[in-house]
């Protein structure tokens, strides 16, 4: 149960090597070993989306992937999106598309995936895309508004 394996992973542009327990999930590794606490843990079984982050260009659930599976991968977390997410961040602020902010890193990741994937300003489609990210505070409406604003170029 305490077996470890050494992995090398590029996170937000920096390469890190560490011996990790083989049973440790990726989000725990990022949070506890690397100190990147932006990705949150909500349910630990892939339902809530709080731990959504990018691995080799795909948005994944950080709680459903083991850290050892990320060996050799390129990982980007909320701390590493940089200018890619600038328009979404501005729109989220403008629309108050967050309250407690706990779902926000995962929500932003899913929204970024939708926008970068060329999704249209179609409210039903946006809602469907975000339907794996749980938010208890907002009514989701402001988040949909924010994504639409970015697609329609209303936010800088």
């Amino acid at each position, binding site marked *: *149960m*305490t077996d470890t394996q050494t992995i090398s992973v590029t996170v937000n542009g920096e390469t890190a090597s560490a011996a990790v*327990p083989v*049973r*440790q999930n990726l989000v725990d590794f990022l*949070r*506890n070993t690397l*100190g*990147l*606490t*932006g*990705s*949150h*843990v*909500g*349910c*630990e*079984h892939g*339902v*809530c989306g*709080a731990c959504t982050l990018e691995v080799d260009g795909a948005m994944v659930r950080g709680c459903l992937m083991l850290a050892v599976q990320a060996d050799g991968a390129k990982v980007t*977390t*909320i*701390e590493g999106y940089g200018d890619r*997410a600038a328009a979404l*961040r501005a729109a*989220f*602020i*403008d*629309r*108050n*598309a*967050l*309250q*407690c*902010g*706990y*779902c*926000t*890193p995962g929500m*932003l990741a899913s929204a970024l995936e939708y926008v970068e994937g060329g999704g249209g300003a179609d*409210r039903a489609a*946006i*809602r*469907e895309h*975000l*339907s*794996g*990210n*749980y*938010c*208890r*505070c*907002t*009514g*989701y*409406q*402001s*988040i*949909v508004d924010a994504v639409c604003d970015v697609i329609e170029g209303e936010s800088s």
Partner: protein
Amino acid sequence: MSGPLTIFDKPNSLIGKPVDRPDAKRLLQGRGKFVDDIQLPRMVHAAFVRAPVAHGRIVSIDLDEARAVPGVIAIYTGADLADHVEPYVGVLSHMVGLRSAPQMPLAIDTVRWTGEPVVMVVASSRAVAEDAAALVFVDIEDLPPATDMERALEPDAPVIHPDFGNNLAWERTVEAGDPDAAFARDDVSVVERTFRFGRHTGVTLETRASVVDYDPSEDTLTCHYSGQAPHMMQFIFAKHLGLPEENVRVISNDVGGSFGIKIHTYGDEIATAAAAKLLQRPVKFVADRLESFLTDIHARDHVVHGRIAVTPEGEIAALAFDDITGIGPYSMYPRTSAIEANQILNLTGAPYALENYRANAKVVFQNKNLMCQYRAVGHPIAMAVADGLLEEAAHKIGMDVVEIRRRNLVKDDAYPCTSATGMKLDDLSHHKTLDKLIETMDYDAKRAEHAALRAEGIHRGLGLVSMIEVTNPSPMFYGIGGAPIASQDGSTIRLEAGGAIHVSSSVTEQGQGTNTILAQIAAGVFGVAMDRVKVTTGDTKTTPYGGGTWASRGAGIGGEATLQAAHALKEQVLDIAGVILQAKPEALDIVEGHVTDKDGTQRMSLSDLARTVYYRGNELPSDMTPELVATRHYRVTDFPFVFTNAAMAAEVELDPDTGFVKILNFWAVEDCGRVINPKLVDEQIRGGVIQGIGGAFYEECIYSEDGQFENATMADYLVPMAFEMPDITIAHVETPTKTSVLGAKGAGEAGTGGAPAALLNAVNDALRPLDAQIHQMPMTPERILKALGTV
């Protein structure tokens, strides 16, 4: 009230403006600081062995294998902690007759609900602690459980606390007028229904979490705590761990959702603090999702038998009901689990001019997780019963549901008045909000459209609710009952040497935007730009005493304290400016960070003034106090609560073949008094509505008969997600409360409290042509099909 009544009209007032939240930037960069983000030197981690059965006697506990796991630092049983923790009992002195048994952080002889903590394992990591916890063997002899709250009162039911003789925790009856005579009248139509409301829970996305550190050199306990009421927790940790209160510091930075879940005393959290004290090092406990479902307080869980009598003219002749609610094996400490039933007695029918009213509530112990206050305490039950019965009565006498409301709602010019249940009401606007709702939703056109669609086999329904909402509680709520829960709050505002101001407030931020509205109020009243205001909340060591955030009190109470403090600081500054500038203070003002003449001519910057006072006091007269800081506290007086009101409506489409309901539209018109920031309040109302939709259609803690929680995962317990949720139209009526200068009431409960009633009525409106009705929430497809008689 005396005070600066014209501040809202000043051009530099930010009150009422849709200002952005400054703290959103941080959260969008992943730089939030939640409790699980904290790692302290020598920190260790807790995991708990929990009761696998709902009721049982602990025969023995075998810890040998667990102790042998490398990395295990300590293991505590209930008996181990008994010498270090004073038991706690969840009763309030003004709730006469309410009883509960002493609770300890870990069960000692008997377990009373599935999930109750029994053994605590502390280890070098949570994973190791869980490994060891899995090796603890607790031998439990099963006892018969009392899980069904209705059967728990029967004479042959197992008694959960043998000394009590039965499972009744509390009972109260409220009566006004002569309801029996009114129901017996020949001319009234009577509608009688039984409503069932499922147990549900808060599902905060950040689970309960604490990191507790103890420093033996100073006998100080510091708790980083995901919670809503830091000063209350300071008292509780001090009292029950035997520490001087001033040696306990509770810090609540970012809190990832609370909704009333995080204002209670949980055994695992008290055990964590006790372990930190015993081990003299930091201990972290973060509940996992399973632990959250099993032990975060649950809410609702009511069966209500209700009756209404209406005259042929639609006047409510009488309203009566009996409520039974199951609260688990204890009344939660310190707020008590009887408050929800009490609210239902007080709130049901309160928007209407009622003369004849009777309500009885029985609060029952059972072998399930504890039930206590969650967002909109009691409101969803009160509103669904009153407005559910009212809409059915309207149909029975052939009257439109809007018309029957207009004939019964308390008139907008009738205030102040007292409700049938004895609640003092003032500054409400039921008719104005209803009128605005009807206009906003285009009611008549919707009715005509639905009638046409029915002919095509499309089943749509409209349902409404008129509601009141408890906000801004006064000390007559908890203080009178002896609980360490403040109803006053304070703000300290100081002028910084650089010309900015710093606001330190006892109300707390959980995402609703408290810090932002405090900054708006302070900036506008004092006279600096928003970005020159810094706000600190959530730290018992640095903020004034207060209650924190619960019952929608942040804006109305914390906001008023901030307004008064900003005004007081402004007076101080202008007094000093008058001396420095050789001017009369009343001839001066503060605008955009400068002391000005009344005509706006800038005389000196705030920074120059502050630096003179702080660093060059030699330039001031010797009798001038070098003080640029003001504290003001505020509490509501004369009223137990500042009630607010709302009118809401839902439009649904029902598929009678599958039982699925699609919410097409939701409209909410709320009167929360003065709106401080429409952008924040609108989305908070929407968030509240979504939680109400959760209770109405999705969320339910399902227990087996023997007390096993059967859907304690987020995959099985359904929560509202983006795809199923509608856009929600919000409108406001603003009737400022006269209890304060600011005039703000709360806005946090309305959506959650009112939406279920509107949705129940809308579904029943869609079902009515099919000769079916439903009175159970959540309204699952299966239950709707059962109502239709198709399964």
